[in-house]
């Protein structure tokens, strides 16, 4: 049981380049989330999805797009990377049913540097 898997683990981009981060979960969870973590900060919510085919904006959505074409996958895209997007990106998922449905399970993170 892999849980939440993020690819890639590390990436270096030049300003203006594009890329897609992939998150996959094998727990049949309904809800999925993308966060970013900057030095000395807690995680901040970028976008989230409450089910296949749905997405919504979080706290810091600008410069990012997402898609949830399959229940198990949640993609985060950067169309034109900027140095301000240098961060560690975490994906999470939750079942969202039952008394413990709010518990979120996190991937190992993707460390992105934009030069």
């Amino acid at each position, binding site marked *: 049981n892999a849980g939440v898997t993020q690819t890639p683990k590390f990436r270096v981009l030049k300003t203006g380049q594009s890329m897609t981060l992939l998150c996959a979960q094998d727990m049949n969870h309904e809800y999925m*989330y993308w966060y970013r973590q900057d030095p000395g900060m807690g995680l901040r919510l970028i976008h989230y999805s409450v089910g296949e085919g749905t997405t919504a904006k979080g*706290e810091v959505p600008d410069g990012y797009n997402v898609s949830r074409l399959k229940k198990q996958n949640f993609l985060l895209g950067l169309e034109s990377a900027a140095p301000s997007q240098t961060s560690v990106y975490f994906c999470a998922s939750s079942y969202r049913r039952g008394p413990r449905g709010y518990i979120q399970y996190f991937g190992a993170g993707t460390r992105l540097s934009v030069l």
Partner: protein
Amino acid sequence: GIQVEQSPPDLILQEGANSTLRCNFSDSVNNLQWFHQNPWGQLINLFYIPSGTKQNGRLSATTVATERYSLLYISSSQTTDSGVYFCAEPYSGGGADGLTFGKGTHLIIQP
């Protein structure tokens, strides 16, 4: 949205010591979670504790929802307890959204 304040921001202890970490919230607490981020960056959910007290080994947590705070207790600290501890509450206070995190308590356990 809800504001989350954690204290202390940094804590350095000797192995075997006990510690108490605190989270204060600006709004009602409904689905509070505590996480540990280890030195390799992995986030592990420690407790889901919207109210009351729970214990898991040397760790325990208490949430007093009516007073908008939560405490995490670590007893007999070990070096493997080092890392950053976060508390978090759903973004819109119990809705369908993601979590709002505090800035964390950076804990260092020295042998």
